[in-house]
């Protein structure tokens, strides 16, 4: 299948860049590490999780936040390729029409996997533990990466629409910051006031976090069952979102790519 071959070529090119571009290194490796340490030590002392430790509770939230922000890499990478004229080069070649975006979203999963490995190591160092089975842990990691992959397709559309790569950060920040904070990522959503609590309960970032937290066995013993449907079915609800995002945004991204013209 030519699309697989071409996407692999594009992904390989993106993988070379990770070693050569220092900003990529900082974003992929240093920033997640910093988040784990900051939250663990700055908030760790003041936020109380009944019956458990905040650090234990926190890690799944940071994982979820990082992979959601990690997906923005797809947007900035594609926007840069448009600006530099690489997309024009690709579009003049007899390659598969969807391979550039498919290759980008695929290689960004590798970026995110690296981030998750670093965060896991940092988490273990500050006292986080995987308390579930190995299989549960594998499922948790897979869910994180799959969700990030699906969100990459949304970000691909953004990257192909913005005029310059710089716009990506501003555009994503004002959406993703509330999206990852009005959730159960850093505090239990039960404590949120009224409407925020409802938003948090239906926020796929919450369900992603909750599903991962459960699989890692990081919920303190005696935590009451969630009352909202999405959180009760966190795994299913998160997967449904991921599939929906791919089904909707992958065709849009491919179409946008074909119309991209650096002028």
């Amino acid at each position, binding site marked *: 299948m*030519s699309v697989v*071959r*071409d996407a692999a*070529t594009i992904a*390989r*090119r993106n993988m*070379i*860049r990770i070693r*050569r*571009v220092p900003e990529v290194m900082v974003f992929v490796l240093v920033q997640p590490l910093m988040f784990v340490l900051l939250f663990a030590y700055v908030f760790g002392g003041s936020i109380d999780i009944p019956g458990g430790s905040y650090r234990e509770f926190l890690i799944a939230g940071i994982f979820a936040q990082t992979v959601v922000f990690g997906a923005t890499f797809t947007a900035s990478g594609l926007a840069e390729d448009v600006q*530099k*004229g*690489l997309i*024009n*080069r*690709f*579009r*003049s*070649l*007899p*390659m598969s029409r969807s391979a550039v975006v498919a290759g980008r979203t695929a290689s960004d999963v590798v970026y995110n996997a690296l981030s998750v490995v670093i965060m896991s190591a940092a988490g273990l160092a500050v006292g986080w533990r995987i308390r579930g089975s190995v299989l549960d842990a594998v499922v948790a990691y897979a869910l994180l990466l799959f969700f990030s992959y699906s969100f990459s397709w949304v970000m691909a559309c953004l990257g192909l629409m913005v005029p310059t790569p710089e716009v990506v950060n501003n555009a994503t920040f004002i959406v993703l910051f509330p999206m990852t904070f009005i959730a159960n990522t850093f505090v239990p959503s039960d404590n949120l006031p009224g409407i925020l609590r409802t938003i948090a309960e239906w926020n796929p970032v919450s369900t992603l976090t909750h599903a991962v937290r459960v699989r890692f066995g990081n919920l303190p013993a005696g935590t009451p069952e969630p009352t909202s449907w999405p959180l009760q079915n966190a795994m299913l609800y998160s997967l449904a979102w991921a599939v929906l995002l791919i089904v909707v945004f992958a065709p849009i991204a491919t179409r946008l790519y074909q119309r991209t*013209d*650096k*002028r």
Partner: protein
Amino acid sequence: MLAVATPMPRRLPPVVDSSAVRGSAGLAVEATGIVKRYGEVTALDGLDLAVPAGTVLGLLGPNGAGKTTAVSVLTTLIKPDSGRALVAGVDVVAEPQRVRALIGLSGQYAAVDEHLTATENLEMIGCLYGMRRREARKRADDLIERFRLTDAANRPLKTFSGGMRRRIDLAGALLADPPVLFLDEPTTGLDPRSRGELWDAIRDRVAGGTTVVLTTQYLEEADQLANEIVVIDHGRAIARGTSQELKRHVGGEHLDVHLARPGDIPRVEALVASVATGAVRVVVDEALVSVPVARGVDALASVLNEVRANNIEVVDIGLRRPTLDDVFMELTGHAAEESETNEATS
């Protein structure tokens, strides 16, 4: 020989018969009535082109004339609003993917990845043309050697000079040995030596039978490389012919007067008016007054006498054959490099 090289096959049967990649009457590129609008701006306004296989067409025009838009249509990057274009006999709108297998594009906006090495860039492009990795690598190495970049082959391109980068960019277009090459301002911003090297590489390909469509703002470049020149302004062809034909169109000889002081320009303009057969061209930066004349030697003698009588200091005065600069001036009423107009259409 003018046979068109066999392109790399990709999801297509290999093209063996060279006539199969030519359009009617041996044309490698054939465009009829191409129109492209961006909102209110008409970038291409009924452009016609016909490029015989194995020749070089120079598309000449100022910024914003529509050169890049024309190349974008022919290389399938944008769809024209109307008109028809065939490249190597294949319709660019109906079968863009087949066209892409038959062309190479290099230019100001079709770039290379600056974080990848020269070898990595070319290998990637080869793979995307459908070659196996080993084949792509071999061709990359060959081209890098031919362009004398072997020493730099494993350095990221961001460490390259502008000239080296352009050579890699051109190598990307040549990699699959496509029968038709599109080079969009290939030497803009290069020093004369790098420019000469790139010209040699392009001539080399043409000698091997490749058809080239080249856009340029440099009249000298078109003069050097192109068999035929099409002058574009405001999205349409305003003149076409060989460099010689276009110069003949302007006719006669030109008298150039280089002054010591730009302040003397107005007086000299008045002096040469009596012998001028066309518009007087003034280049203030060079203190140059240039004018087409009919009887060259008489004109030279009379202007020289007048200049001396008026005590105007002259650095150089002489007759010359018209250049493409004169052609452009004559056709468009403005000089080629002065018209830095809106970039919207370029």
